[in-house]
């Protein structure tokens, strides 16, 4: 149990997916201009990462590994993710129109979010068992949501700050991300 708590903490802050592993930078910079959209994107990502990691883990261990075709991993995983995102979209539209309205526009963007495929592959590479996989993918995606929300709050304030012309937009966002990364790097000393 304590091992799982350690893994959860590591996934949440120490090995934060955006700031130390550089996965999911595109939505991190692209959809973080407003707090509400950052929250929507973050929640959609948590949902999809946990679901897709579970399915790809099961597929890898019970089908690909058994048939000894593990080299098909990349193709199978990306197709599963693309199909899954589509299905989640259809499902949400039917079952919960309110939730669909909130998350709908972010869902198609998630297919090409490298965090989703990245987490699925990391789970396999690190040899996580089922419980570890579940904890890791939950907390790493919550880490994404957390950092994304903080970043969106900073960027809302940034709009009113006198930023040099050349730094407007992406450059200043990257510098802010660098400062955030500096803070998160310090968490490494805790465990």
């Amino acid at each position, binding site marked *: 149990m304590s091992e799982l708590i350690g893994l959860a903490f590591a996934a949440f802050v120490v090995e934060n997916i955006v*700031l130390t592993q550089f*996965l999911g930078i595109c939505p991190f*910079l692209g959809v973080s201009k407003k707090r509400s959209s950052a929250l929507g994107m973050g929640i959609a990502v948590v949902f999809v990462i946990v679901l897709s990691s579970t399915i790809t883990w099961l597929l890898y261990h019970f089908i690909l590994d058994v048939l000894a075709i593990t080299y098909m991993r990349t*193709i199978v995983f990306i197709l599963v993710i693309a199909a899954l995102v589509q299905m989640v979209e259809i499902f949400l539209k039917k079952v919960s129109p309110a939730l669909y309205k909130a998350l709908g526009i972010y869902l198609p963007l998630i297919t*090409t979010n*490298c965090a989703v*495929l990245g987490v699925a592959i990391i789970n396999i590479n690190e040899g996580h068992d089922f419980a570890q996989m579940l904890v890791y993918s939950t907390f790493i995606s919550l880490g994404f949501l957390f950092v994304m929300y903080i970043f969106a709050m900073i960027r809302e304030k940034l709009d009113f700050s006198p930023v040099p012309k050349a730094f407007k937009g992406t450059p*200043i966002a990257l510098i802010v991300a*660098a400062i955030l990364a500096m803070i998160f790097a310090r968490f490494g000393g805790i465990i």
Partner: protein
Amino acid sequence: MNKLDNFLKGFLKENPLFVSVLGMCPSLAITTSLENALGMGAAVFFVLTLSNFIISLIMSNKKLAELVKPVRIPVYIVVIASLVTIVEMVMHAFLINLYESLGVFIPLIVVNCIILGRAEAFASENKPLDSVLDGMGMALGYTGALVIISLVREILGQGSITIWGNLAIDLGFAFDFLKIQPLDMFTKPVGAFMSFGFILATIFAISNHKANKKAKEVKGQ
């Protein structure tokens, strides 16, 4: 648009990394040494050139194009993922060191926005030869951008340039001469975000300056 333009536009005018700001994740993660940047560039070159070629072959056949159109994104993804799998297997077999240092970012070439972006924006509407030239130009432009970032990070962070394997230039003497030391920070994530931010700002400043100059000239006339 002529063939040379198709090839050259990826270098500066439509550079995928510095102008369109696509494919950020690997550009931040693997630019810790020149060797990694070159390896990543080579992988992207292979995948992008061939995927552009195959996709434009599919789409320039009228019958096939009609068939594929409604499901074109999954088709593109399958083509790209197959090519990436080839790269992954070749690297694993022959370049094990590079394979290990690039790690998860080799399979992640599949979701690199540049490749799918070029497939959708260029290869699906142009002839195979043009698409190949476009893919090569874009991939070389991307590699060039990776090389610039990795040079900044490796020189400032480690005081050396690793060209390939053991072939490296040690810049320790320059640091001794200036009585400074390489800053470890630049090999860490902080340095990645920081150097990319400053490089991008420099490029924006240059293009702003050029745009201003042009505007003035137009006014003057």
